[in-house]
């Protein structure tokens, strides 16, 4: 058996829709924990309103946020996976199918950066990153649509042999400058090192790591913990109400490089739009997130 064009087309559309209408379980748990821990009354009310908004969207089959962003997929192809039909075309067609069929309809968010015209399609849409998984008999698809609200505030700086102090100071500086614009409490992805392209990629992938998971590198786990305290100590709070909850999570990854050390920082808003599933050779569909 093989994974078919139709399966991939349907799943890529479904993943996008799921990500818009339901926030991931780990984000729900993180919000609940934040409501418990938050000491600022206005912030607690705002967090509770976020939970109500998410519940309401899920229960009524509507969008949590009106801004559906642009379609962004992260795809891992197993080396044992077999395909029947075009894979890339299936993903493109999946988005086109979604635009036609989803209820309520999507707003036109795909923007031509040269003219600022908006529509439902454009060059390089959907944005897809590819990777391989040795020995796997599936294709693993994550959909994490991105919009201006949090996407606008990502930052990159190229350092040369930076100290950890410089890297941590840079993060706090970026958070102060963004000043609660990215719909906090945010998930912060940080990439350190590699090359320009590798660094931004690992920062982005870090935002997809489950909230509440512990970094496998002890030094990075410790760094994440101390930066969480520092970022939340800045006091912006959910949607800028003030309070203790500016970040739900900070996830850091690094790559070896050559002494020119890019540091990339990117954000997910409190919704953490993300949906993920696998299609297997035998026809199974496994919803992962």
């Amino acid at each position: 058996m093989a994974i078919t064009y139709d399966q991939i087309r349907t799943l890529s559309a479904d993943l996008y829709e799921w990500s818009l209408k339901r926030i991931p379980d780990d984000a729900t748990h993180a919000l609940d924990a934040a409501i418990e821990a938050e000491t600022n009354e206005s912030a607690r009310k705002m967090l509770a309103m976020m939970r109500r908004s998410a519940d309401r969207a899920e229960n009524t089959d509507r969008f949590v946020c009106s801004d559906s962003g642009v379609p962004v997929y992260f795809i891992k192809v197993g080396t044992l996976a077999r395909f029947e039909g075009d894979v890339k075309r299936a993903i493109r067609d999946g988005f086109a199918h979604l635009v036609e069929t989803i209820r309520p309809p999507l707003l036109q968010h795909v923007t031509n950066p040269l003219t600022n015209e908006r529509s439902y399609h454009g060059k390089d849409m959907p944005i897809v990153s590819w990777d391989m998984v040795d020995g796997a008999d599936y294709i693993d698809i994550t959909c994490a649509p991105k919009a201006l609200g949090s996407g606008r505030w990502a930052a990159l700086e190229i350092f040369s042999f930076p100290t950890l102090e410089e890297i941590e100071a840079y993060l706090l500086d970026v958070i102060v400058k963004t000043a609660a614009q990215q719909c906090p409490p945010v998930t912060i992805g940080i990439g350190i090192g590699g090359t320009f392209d590798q660094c931004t990629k690992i920062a982005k992938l870090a935002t997809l790591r489950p909230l509440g998971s512990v970094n496998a590198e002890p030094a990075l786990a410790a760094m994440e913990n101390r930066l969480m305290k520092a970022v939340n100590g800045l006091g912006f709070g959910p949607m800028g109400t003030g309070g203790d909850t500016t970040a739900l999570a900070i996830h850091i990854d690094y790559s070896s490089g050559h002494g020119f050390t890019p540091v990339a920082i990117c954000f997910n808003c409190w919704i953490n739009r993300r949906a993920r599933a696998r299609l297997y050779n035998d026809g199974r569909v496994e919803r992962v997130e």
Partner: protein
Amino acid sequence: MARSVHLTLPVSPDDMRQLALGDLVTVSGEIVMTGGLPTHMRIVEAMKGQRELPFLLDGAAFFHLPSYSVDTENGLEILYMNPTTSTRFNSLMPGIIRHFGLRMVCGKGGLDAESTRAMQEVGCVYLSILGGGATLHSDAIRKVVDVGWSDLTTHYRLIKLQVEDLGPLTVAIDAHGNNGFLQLEERARQRLPHLMETLRRERETASSATAKD
């Protein structure tokens, strides 16, 4: 202590001067809303006499609130609405606030110091609304009163909408020159040296623990 206030539109500059940072406001009445930069640019053109406005904006409650609208037998229907980032319009808002004597601006992320001055001059507040609250905000929709610039994509149109109990919205810039977002930023800057010192100590503890291993 933050108060909870219900406001029925239209409101006066004096009404707005009664509000303080952090007050929670619900709003009923007619608001004007859009999410589009091109829409703001058309408004600025209208201010210069280069274009007609679809309806008057004097004393309006102006919301950075894009929406999905569809044409129905009974006119335009709004399916959902949710805020956009107000700071995108920083360069245009001071002029718009002053020209029309806006009473409130609502959106997410606040506005800059120049808009804050304009709001103080005319008696206007900025209300911060939850981003990602489409279902909750859309509950407040009652009736589309007027629609301007329908040639634009749906979330850019200028829409006059009757709402009931929209909110709670947080007063994030008052009519006395106080900007909650800028205050938070200033306070965060003041906290930076202490936070950096704490980070330094924690890095040292972590590296000495590693050295013992």
